[in-house]
């Protein structure tokens, strides 16, 4: 799996993602500068966490207009795998590759801690190796991860089975107490209709080594590797991103 890790001004989990892929998984990976426009050497593009452009105005609002995001949009529409982590998730939403928005945490505080995620869909490129209902332990680190979408959007996400992760208790119950940021329906991660684009607030790249507290994050990267050997089915219908893009 050839991975490109996008570096925007202000990105910081680029190095953590590179560490997970190169050192832990032994997979080839390269950094992709935000001014780049060619991604055809890549199987997977990661938009990592951080504070692109300082998260000034709105998280991801300015990064969304960089050349690389146009390229990522085209790459996604060609069926390439795209993983947006934390700030990357926010950027995918600003770019309309994924629906909804991420508001300030309900606590209005930044939160860095381990959380439990229930795998709601294991037919995305990033969850193939998970059992449905499986609970993953992965850290969050954000101040604005409070998922919001209007009723209609949320309903269609539920209907189309595009809610991939929900915050849950260690034994997999979806409760208010397990929700670290006030997200609607405890949503922690969603995918596009085709399942090749995933956005999530938690940081799988921080959960790839027992030494650092856990390795559940590896499942997602291993799933992607497997997905590439069994290409995903074509979109059932026009999913987001196919027409949406950069103004």
């Amino acid at each position, binding site marked *: 799996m050839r991975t490109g890790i996008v570096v925007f001004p202000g990105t910081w989990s680029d190095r953590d993602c590179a560490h997970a892929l190169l050192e832990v998984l032994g997979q080839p990976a390269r950094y992709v500068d935000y001014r780049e426009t060619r991604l055809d050497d890549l199987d997977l593009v990661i938009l990592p966490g951080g504070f692109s*452009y*300082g998260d*000034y*105005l709105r998280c991801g*609002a*300015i990064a969304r*207009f960089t050349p690389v995001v146009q390229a990522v949009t085209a790459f996604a529409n060609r069926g390439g795998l795209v993983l947006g982590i934390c700030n990357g998730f926010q950027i995918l939403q600003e770019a309309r590759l994924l629906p909804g928005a991420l508001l300030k945490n309900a606590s209005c505080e930044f939160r860095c801690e381990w959380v439990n995620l229930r795998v709601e869909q294991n037919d995305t490129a990033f969850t193939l190796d998970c059992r449905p209902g499986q609970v993953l332990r992965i850290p969050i680190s954000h101040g604005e991860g409070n998922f919001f979408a209007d009723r209609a959007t949320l309903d269609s996400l539920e209907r189309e089975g595009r809610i991939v992760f929900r915050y849950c208790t260690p034994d997999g119950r979806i409760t208010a107490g397990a929700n670290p940021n006030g997200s609607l329906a405890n949503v922690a991660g969603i995918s596009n209709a085709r399942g090749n684009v995933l956005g999530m607030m938690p940081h799988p790249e921080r959960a790839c080594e027992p030494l650092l507290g856990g390795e559940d994050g590896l499942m997602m990267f291993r799933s992607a590797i497997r997905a590439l050997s069994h290409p995903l089915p074509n979109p059932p219908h026009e999913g987001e991103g196919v027409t949406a893009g950069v103004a």
Partner: protein
Amino acid sequence: MYRAEVFVRLKPVVNDPAGLTIRAGLHALGFESVTEVRAGKYLVLTLNEPDEATARRQVEEMARQLLANEVIEDFRIEMHPVQDPIAVGGGA
């Protein structure tokens, strides 16, 4: 019932990283005519208070104590009489 609009902005001499970054973003989008951007806060309050003068005095107090940080920010207030709250479905 009154609606108070409170406009909070950084004092002119204070560095405004957000404004600078937004201006750079606008330039990147081709809006060259923008010479300056200042980023501030826009707070809309609903007060259950019959008398406008009292309401305004209260909001000024709130701004001084909490809404604005007078060490680095200025604020401006506008009052309007209103009937109903803003948020639908108990948003706020």
